[in-house]
């Protein structure tokens, strides 16, 4: 049985991880088919239907402008998933590049890159994201960049640590002594063997990215109205907590479920990729 098949078997035996995948797939369907799934226009207001509680017409009720919260949550999934995917892609590619260069070449380059990660680590993550957003200006695209930058050092550290372990393995030394070029060794031998830890981190980083996007939008620094971000819906709904609790309840639940699902997947990946589990 190939390594991938073994991994897939171990992962699919973890029911919670499978549940996590199912939730994320559902979210993906919502994001891709939002215009067909949402019963109402998420931006169009209808003052006659303002602050209506959940009914059969409006499953999750309406906001102060009479907009359907269910439709806004469906469209909001596009923003959350986009931020998660793009931010994590930025963090993974930049962080892995830094980690590979630092871990494989060592010396001055390693010291320099690790000091840069030390500096980025010393910032409280949310404060750094807020500062970057202040520079770039509030928008969904800028949130992706800000969150991506914040998460670079973690990927750099994880990749470097994995590279350090792999670099001294016999098969790498054999490739070096055969005269294989550094790029060839890195891409053919080192990266595939250092990927496990990065893969686990990707799902956790996506959870973090979605939380930070929601937090920044909640503070008014992320996605701007009238675009339906879950975080900004929470922020506006907060002012109507007593009259319309559904306005804060459902967007919060959407964020929670998404992050929860990503953590379930992360746990499942970690268990399936853990060498100790493999030995068992």
């Amino acid at each position: 049985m190939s390594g991938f098949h073994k991994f897939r078997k171990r992962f699919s035996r973890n029911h919670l991880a499978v549940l996590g995948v199912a939730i994320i797939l559902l979210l993906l369907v919502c994001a891709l088919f939002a215009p067909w799934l949402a019963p109402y226009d998420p931006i169009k207001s209808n003052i006659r239907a303002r602050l209506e509680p959940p009914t059969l017409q409006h499953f999750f009720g309406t906001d102060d402008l009479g907009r359907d919260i269910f439709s806004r949550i469906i469209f909001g999934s596009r923003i959350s998933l986009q931020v998660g995917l793009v931010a994590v892609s930025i963090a993974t590619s930049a962080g892995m590049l830094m980690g590979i260069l630092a871990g494989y070449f060592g010396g001055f380059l390693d010291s320099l890159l690790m000091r840069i990660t030390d500096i980025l680590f010393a910032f409280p993550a949310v404060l750094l994201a807020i500062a970057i957003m202040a520079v770039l200006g509030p928008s969904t695209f800028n949130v992706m960049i800000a969150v991506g930058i914040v998460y670079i050092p973690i990927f750099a550290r994880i990749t470097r640590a994995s590279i350090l372990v792999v670099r001294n393995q016999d098969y790498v030394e054999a490739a070096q002594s055969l005269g294989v070029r550094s790029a060839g060794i890195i891409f053919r031998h080192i990266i595939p063997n250092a990927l496990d830890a990065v893969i686990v981190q990707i799902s956790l980083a996506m959870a973090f990215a979605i939380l930070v996007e929601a937090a920044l939008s909640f503070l008014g620094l992320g996605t701007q109205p009238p675009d339906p971000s879950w975080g900004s819906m929470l922020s506006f709904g907060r002012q109507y907590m007593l009259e319309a609790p559904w306005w804060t309840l459902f967007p919060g639940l959407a964020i929670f479920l998404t992050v929860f699902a990503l953590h379930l997947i992360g746990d499942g990946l970690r268990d399936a990729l853990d060498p100790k589990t493999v030995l068992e």
Partner: protein
Amino acid sequence: MTTYIIKRLFLLVPVLLGVSLTTFLLLRLTPGDPATSILGVQATPVEVARIRKALGLDKPWYVQYGIWLGNIFQGDLGVSYQSKKPVAELVRQRFPATLELTVAALLFSTLLAIPIGILTAIKRNTAADHAFTSFGLFGISMPDFWFAILLILVFSLYLGWFPASGRSPWAAGIGKYFKHLVLPALALGLFNIGALMRFTRSSMLEVIGQDYIRTARAKGLSENRVVLHHALRNALIPTITVLGLQIGYALGGSVIIEQVFAWPGIGWLALTAINQRDYPVVMAVVLINALVFVLSNLIVDVLYTWVNPRIRISEEAA
């Protein structure tokens, strides 16, 4: 050990310089002018130029940074562009509020998370384990600002047990002080409970599977003695490092929690200062946050070395 601490303290200097330089450059890249922010959009270019000169903003950025750095070494954090008060005074007023919120959140969450983490490891695969493990996942998945809103909705607006916002000083009575602190500390500490509980559990499970624990059991020691005397001590060592990281998370998280609960700490101060382009205040708050974070990590590392004989011995040998 002393040499190790001194060496680590020296290594903090370039990190803190890097943090200050990064923040400084980020602020200079931020669109908007502090002078316009002070005078308002109606101000004439002459007035704006006068204020820029008075604040030293007409000088090249590296000169401005040099002046700021020189002042920092003399203990001068500058003057707020908006309130015209010394930044040190603003920080002195606001920092205790953030500190007490962070300490309260970390204290209660640690006291709760570690025993639960141990319990779930000992009672692995029981109903209690599944329930608490799910709770741990809930803790790390819950957006803290949403949890804060729910706490306000239930415990302040519906039940009226706790105030929805603000901070009460000691002098106004200890009961009132704690009533104001409970909800923000709960909201800020929830993530830490989940993260620490999960980490303690997995760390404890790893230790329980070790040969020396099997030997202790084979010797006929009671289960309590095996767990408390042998397993716990070793399982808690890696947990200490996680605690160090949680301090950074709690400090960052306090920016949002302070905003939700109108808690007058430095997180809220930083958020307002960023929006108002109040450079000296932002610089000071970021630097203080970074300093607290790196120092707490240093303390955690020292503690880790101290409680772990293997590391201590290798340090002494080196």
